[in-house]
């Protein structure tokens, strides 16, 4: 497996790609917080936030469909929010019968449900955009600059660095299980659920031991190259005029969105 098989970074030459990763991380969080702060049914403010999202998307040159296509990841969770439709404060809109019981959808319930979906949909698209225009190591480095403790960013950096190695290991384990799981038509293969769980558990334990031993080798290799408890990067981040401009743009726009949302 290639090292960036998991990477969501899309290489392009664009304004958004060139921005300082710290700026990108901060404005993304600001945008998501702003969505969370908007009251239910602030349609004009939601539309403005969508405009900001589309504008950021335009700056990234990824095409409008890019974030749209990937934004469905949060959809299954909407199932949990569906219960707010039946909130009892507000006027009934629609009554239906499920299993001889009455379920009423109210206007406040519907308003809240739609608002939750919009907030989630806008927020997830901005997060998708962030990782599409920022290399993951740059993002980790930005987090370090934003005072996330070094021990955490180092663990994340190692996780990212060795994830594809261990996934290859998982594929080997899965292939080994597959190759030993013969099945003939008409005859069920394998044992009970508990037996299958035992196999999977053994594989997880095996993966643990392999990872553990690998981490020893990694540490020794790092020591031999002069590791003294810190990772260095040749990529110093520098704020340019574009970065200041984008930060200012987001601060002003989000302030406006909040004002409009509360009118």
């Amino acid at each position, binding site marked *: 497996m290639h090292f960036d098989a998991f990477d969501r970074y899309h290489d392009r030459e664009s304004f958004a790609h060139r921005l300082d990763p710290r700026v990108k991380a901060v404005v993304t969080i600001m945008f998501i917080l702003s969505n969370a702060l908007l009251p239910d049914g602030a349609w004009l403010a939601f539309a403005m936030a969508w405009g900001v999202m589309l504008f950021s998307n335009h700056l990234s040159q990824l095409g409008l469909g890019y974030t749209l296509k990937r934004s469905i990841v949060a959809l299954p969770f909407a199932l949990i929010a569906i219960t707010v439709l039946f909130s009892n404060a507000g006027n009934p809109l629609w009554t239906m019968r499920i299993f001889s019981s009455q379920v009423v959808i109210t206007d406040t319930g519907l308003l809240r449900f739609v608002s*939750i979906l*919009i907030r*989630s949909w806008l927020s997830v698209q901005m997060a998708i955009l962030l990782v599409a225009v920022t290399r993951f190591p740059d993002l980790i480095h930005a987090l370090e600059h934003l005072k996330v403790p070094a021990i955490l960013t180092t*663990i994340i950096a190692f996780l990212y660095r060795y994830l594809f190695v261990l996934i290859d290991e998982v594929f080997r384990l899965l292939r080994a299980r597959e190759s030993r799981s013969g099945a003939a038509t008409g005859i069920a293969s394998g044992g009970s659920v508990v037996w299958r769980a035992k196999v999977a558990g053994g594989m997880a334990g095996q993966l643990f031991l392999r990872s553990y031993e690998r981490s020893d080798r990694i540490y020794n290799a790092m020591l031999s190259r002069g590791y003294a408890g810190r990772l260095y990067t040749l990529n110093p981040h520098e704020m340019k005029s574009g970065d200041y401009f984008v930060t200012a743009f987001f601060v002003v726009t989000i302030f406006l969105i909040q004002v409009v949302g509360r009118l």
Partner: protein
Amino acid sequence: MHYIPTPMHIPDGFLNWVISILCWLITIAVVGIAISKTNKSLGERQIPLMGVMAAFIFAAQMINFPVAGGTSGHLLGGALAAIVLGPWAGMLVMTAVIAVQALLFQDGGLLVMGANILNMGLATAAVGYGLYRSAASSSKGVKLGVTGVAAWLSVMTGALLTTLQLWLSGTSQLAVVFPAMMGVHALIGLGEALITVFALGFILQARPDLLGEGSESAKAGSGWVWVGGLIALTVVLLSPLASADPDGLERVAINAGFIHYGQSAPFSIIPDYTIPFLGQTSISTITAGIVGVVIVGLVAFLIGRGVRARS
């Protein structure tokens, strides 16, 4: 990619800002303690170890086994991480895993990441390790049995916290979502318990030194037994109560004035009429919970016997 999203990662937009920030504050406080503790007890050698272990948890979540009807069980890993690495290091590892899931895969949001880390990383590690620690000096069979219960309860704790946060944010009605979430996770937890028990059993057999005397896992204080035990007890007591009487829980929250901070749109559970199938659902949840405990206990007992017979 063979990446399986779990139904516990809350996306952005589903928790309101007060709950999101409150959860972030708790998470930052606990992770801060975890960092200072691990900095004290671990050398620089442990940092690559924890990084690779985080990748291990991530990768191990892809090992699945078919259960029935196209569904499959797989690992979440909070309890296992805390048991093999010790509670503080386990918490840091889970924090990194959840952060990468949110950053790379948008599985879980950014503003709500504090809540996701709290539910799936910190709480699961505390419950998983605390209960395991209570049996640390027992025989291998008992140890594995307790591990199974610990893993199952760690998933239930995460599910309970997730449900409470969603409800306090006004994103879902407790009466419906509580039994549904707890019921689903009672089953997911069974998969978690089985894999955790078998994985730990294998590690104990192949490399007992990793968990023996002097290991990080054995060094953590016995105070964890109290922490994990108390959280687990709360979950066990609160679950049937909340399933049977969600309105009661709601009243407590209203009396405490907490719900006003949580919900921007005030609404309460339908007071005038009851929906018959809800009653059935909450009863089925309790039943599922009891059946789950019995099955986990039984499986643990059988494994314990099998292990003893072999050795």
